[in-house]
């Protein structure tokens, strides 16, 4: 996108700043064109598409099972939820009953991945705000989660763990004690992050009352997940439309009060604690049984389906049109960041450019998810 369009609206004492696409605070390749008046942002246009890999087109040329590794790449910070969204949609389409053990394993992996994803967000957001230590702490703990994943499926970033009808393999026996050990250890670490950041005066002055998002505006802009819950809207798909046995676990969806940057921070922090509770319950209550339903090798569903799940960044879902062949006819991928990147303009206008990094960090946008 050229800067011309935004220049048209430029007043005499205003100027244009280009941020990105290669810029540390844009968490990937996002370009922002800002119209500035002094230090204040007057208009903002996000320029996306630098990571567009046409995943939706690829889906039309792969079978349902073959598309699984591509879902990993939609959001590489949280591959498990992307896997889960795809299998949920295909299973809903083909009416496949998933064994309970597989559902529990999916929950364990998804929640661990949610923690890992929130740790990346915590590390990068605090780094953007000038706090270097939480970044190192967060990545230290994330490493332990990646070890758990590596133990299970051999991968550290793009797991390709789930299968239509279940999961690919049983975790090794030592996984479960390690998992419990991790949640115990991690709860204390969350206290450490909070000690460093939550009521730190510098952090508070950068985040408190900055970029408030009212609930109705958030809904209108398609905001979801922690971003919307920070405004106080009690909406968590794990509770409202439970999938993959989430109704069997006791957990809370933390809510904010105001919807400022600090609320979006505290909601995610509390969510990490809740993830630990879910993982603990799932490990303890893990039922015996098969880990994969019997799914025919040649698999030709027909019909249309729309399924959505709660991914770490918000709601993620697929719309599939199946025409009775081995490949989907059309796949539309809905990701939370695609909606949130539009929210940026609403939130950042009339704030200073220094606040932009705090606002952007608090939305937890990852660019592969925007561009697909």
């Amino acid at each position, binding site marked *: 996108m050229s800067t011309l369009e935004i220049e048209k609206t430029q007043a005499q004492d205003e100027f244009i700043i280009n941020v990105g696409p290669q810029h540390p605070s844009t968490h990937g390749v996002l370009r922002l064109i800002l119209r500035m008046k002094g230090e204040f942002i007057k208009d903002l246009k996000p320029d996306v598409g630098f990571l567009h890999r046409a995943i939706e087109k690829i889906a039309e040329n792969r079978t349902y099972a073959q598309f699984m590794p591509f879902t990993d790449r939609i959001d590489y910070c949280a591959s498990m939820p992307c896997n889960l969204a795809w299998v949920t949609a295909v299973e809903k389409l083909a009416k496949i009953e998933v064994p309970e053990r597989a559902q529990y394993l999916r929950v364990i992996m998804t929640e661990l991945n949610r923690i890992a994803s929130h740790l990346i967000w915590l590390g990068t957001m605090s780094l953007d705000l000038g706090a270097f230590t939480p970044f190192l702490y967060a990545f230290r703990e994330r490493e332990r989660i990646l070890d758990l994943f590596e133990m299970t499926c051999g991968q550290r970033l793009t797991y390709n763990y789930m299968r239509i009808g279940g999961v690919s393999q049983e975790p090794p026996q030592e996984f479960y004690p390690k998992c419990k050990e991790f949640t115990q250890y991690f709860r204390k670490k969350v206290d450490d992050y909070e000690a460093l950041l939550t009521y730190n005066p510098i952090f508070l002055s950068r985040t408190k009352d900055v970029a408030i998002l009212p609930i109705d505006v958030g*809904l*209108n802009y398609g905001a979801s997940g922690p971003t919307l819950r920070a405004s106080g809207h009690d909406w968590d798909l794990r509770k409202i439309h439970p999938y993959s046995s989430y109704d069997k676990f006791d957990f809370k969806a933390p809510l904010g009060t105001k919807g400022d940057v600090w609320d979006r921070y505290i909601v995610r922090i509390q969510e990490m604690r809740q993830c630990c509770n879910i993982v603990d319950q799932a490990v303890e209550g893990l039922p015996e049984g098969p880990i994969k339903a019997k799914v025919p090798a040649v698999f030709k569903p027909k019909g249309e389906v*729309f399924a959505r799940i709660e991914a770490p960044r918000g709601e993620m879902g697929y*719309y599939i049109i199946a025409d009775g062949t*081995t490949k989907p006819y059309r796949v539309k991928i*809905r990701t939370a960041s*695609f909606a949130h990147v*539009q929210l940026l303009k609403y939130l950042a206008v009339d704030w200073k450019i220094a606040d932009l990094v705090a606002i952007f960090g608090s939305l937890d946008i990852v660019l592969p998810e925007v561009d697909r």
Partner: protein
Amino acid sequence: MTKDEIEKQLVKDFGEHIEIQTTDQPEPFLYVAKEKYVEFCKYLTENPSLAFDFLFQLGGAHFVDASGQGEKFDVILCLASSKHKHEMVLKVKLPAENLALGTVTGIWRVADFYELEAMELYGIKFPDHPHPRRLLLDDDWDYGYPMRKGWSGHPDFIPMPDKSESAE
């Protein structure tokens, strides 16, 4: 509201302009006439018993019949209500010769990027869109609409061998 209740209410208020699809899904799937599309969307958000305030996604789809001659387009919207917790899939049929459709950015702001995406990937036109521009593709993209079926491809593109048939 349940699927049946939503369908009943919509038939009551927009009877001749909608066409309900029979599916085995828990959400209602329906087509609305192109001319009534924007009005219908407004009604969906404003009617207190429906209150579809959350646009989950909007996307295009391209259908070509077996002969490769007849083609049509759909615009598909997935809607949800944060108040009543129900969901719905709304579709609009577009004939290939006239792909213009009203914009819903005034109703759900999130539709902005979704419409831009449908515009450049499928060639669906939204003449009333407030800021039409390129979104995902290059600024100098001049190779047609890539998500359409039978798209000829980028001249520099070397296709991967199709292995999915051998998977059967």
